[in-house]
């Protein structure tokens, strides 16, 4: 109970603050390896429960971590604000999320904070594209692209890996994630 009260005070005090976090850069392979849950979905509700901010997502497709229709993300409220962790708004645009496995306290957050949050955008022809807060910059750095998308498969991904940055086709990106999780394309 005492902890709840203290945290409540902290939350009030943190209404405005100067803050920042230092986060190590991860490539997509690292994001996939680190995440316990990867899914494409949309935030449907945000609730405050004691020390936690609880986000519920309607999962359109699970890529790692089960096959549920909904995913619940519990983020520690104060800790999220200290570190300027990503926030979500119910009904906001679709996202492709990489989440750490839940801790013993039941908390999680996006892997690498903004690195593990890919906004899903609809381009002019109706095609969906994805980009994280870094515009996918260096997302494929150090990766053996031939292992995951050999030859002319996933051409948009290959172009982006050469460019080093830029939005990616949503379907290709999900296929690439699937290949990475599976350990690469079988020869």
């Amino acid at each position: 109970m005492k902890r709840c009260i203290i945290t409540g005070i902290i939350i009030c005090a943190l209404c405005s603050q100067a803050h920042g976090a230092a986060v190590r850069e991860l490539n997509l392979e690292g994001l996939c390896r680190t995440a316990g849950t990867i899914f494409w979905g949309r935030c449907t509700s945000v609730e405050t429960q004691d020390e936690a901010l609880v986000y519920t997502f309607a999962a359109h497709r699970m890529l790692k971590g089960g096959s549920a229709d909904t995913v619940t993300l519990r983020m520690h409220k104060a800790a999220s604000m200290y570190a300027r962790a990503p926030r979500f708004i119910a009904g906001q645009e679709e996202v492709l999320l990489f989440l750490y496995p839940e801790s013993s306290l039941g908390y999680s957050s996006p892997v690498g904070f903004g690195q593990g949050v890919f906004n899903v955008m609809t381009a002019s022809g109706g095609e969906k594209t994805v980009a994280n807060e870094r515009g996918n910059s260096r997302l494929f750095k150090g990766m053996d692209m031939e292992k995951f998308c050999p030859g002319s498969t996933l051409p948009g991904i290959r172009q982006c890996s050469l460019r080093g940055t830029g939005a990616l086709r949503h379907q290709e990106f999900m296929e690439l994630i699937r290949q990475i999780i599976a350990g690469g394309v079988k020869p």
Partner: protein
Amino acid sequence: MKKLQVLVLLVLLTHYATPSCAGGPLLTDKNCNPVVFPASAMPIPYSIDQGTLGSFSNSEAAAIVDDCFATWQGVATARISFKNAGHLAADVTKDNVFTFTDYTDGINPVIFDTDGGIIDSLYGVGASDNIIGFSGSATDDTGSYYTEGLSLLNGRFTQEPYNWGPELFKATFVHEFGHFIGLDHTQINSQYVHDDNTTNDVYIPTMFPTATDNDSSLGRLNPDDEAAVTMLYPAEIQVVNAVYGRISGTLYWRSGLPARGANVVAVKQGDEEMSRFSSVSDYCMQGDGAFEMLVTPGTYNFIVEPINPFFTGGSSVGPYAGTALSLSFIFPAVTTEYEENLTIAAGETQEVQLVVRHNLLTPAPGLFALLLQFLNSLGLLQTAGY
């Protein structure tokens, strides 16, 4: 160089007015004053964890923290000081961390998460392999002053496979402690950040938002960092006037409306790479396009550029870059180099008005589509597909 559109370039004052608006504050109050720790809070005390920081002993870790704070304190033109107030009451772990997160006890804890256990328990399993640490401060009820802060360093990075030495921790936490005292990011010399050339990273300011090819030099302040902390915490006026001139200005669109959320850079002739100073237009969020910066004496050219569209969220630069849909990224400024020079002496204040064009096609693929999607969600577009 492109033809400039400087409307007015007037020398208005020869002495400073009362320091008010600043370049690079994370927060400003409703009167455009940067949010800072008050003078009565100096020296700002910080209290150090009793435990170790991974493979560093407590005294070794404390020395890193002392060194990081001393780096900011060492700026002669800034009146900011810190004091090591000794140890916290315990070795902070995931089991007792909440005892030290109160913002009303007068203590600014510096926590050593020796094995990353605190980070893992708060952010998720494995987060300690990504989050190197953080630092932040909270304001009082009026939103004018910071009252207390909290910092956490992750000892996991002293161990395999990272094996960080004190130098990399210093490079990281001089930056984080910059946030602790209220400094925002700057995007000066971003062309050097990931060009695989480690020798030019010395020109990247400490408050740059991301890692570079060689972070070790980020532990030393650059001219833009020193000017920014001086804006927030100016020393006696004669001390500041002896070192800096002040450029105060307004950025307009060609339509004559104030331009908000673009980066204005003053480049010193003869020292173009190191002596660059910046301010985000309308950093006070007054809607007037105002910018302000301290510069060392010399002759300057100006560059106006859009905020890097990848610097959003925790990497944002200026007050209009929180998300990909923020104002800095909607029809942003076209990068413009101005031909006219401005020569400024120490103690002098000069005013400049700059005009810049909108970029009607945003530079980052996808962001334009995101904007259209957003407008469509508001019912402002009728085109099928958006």
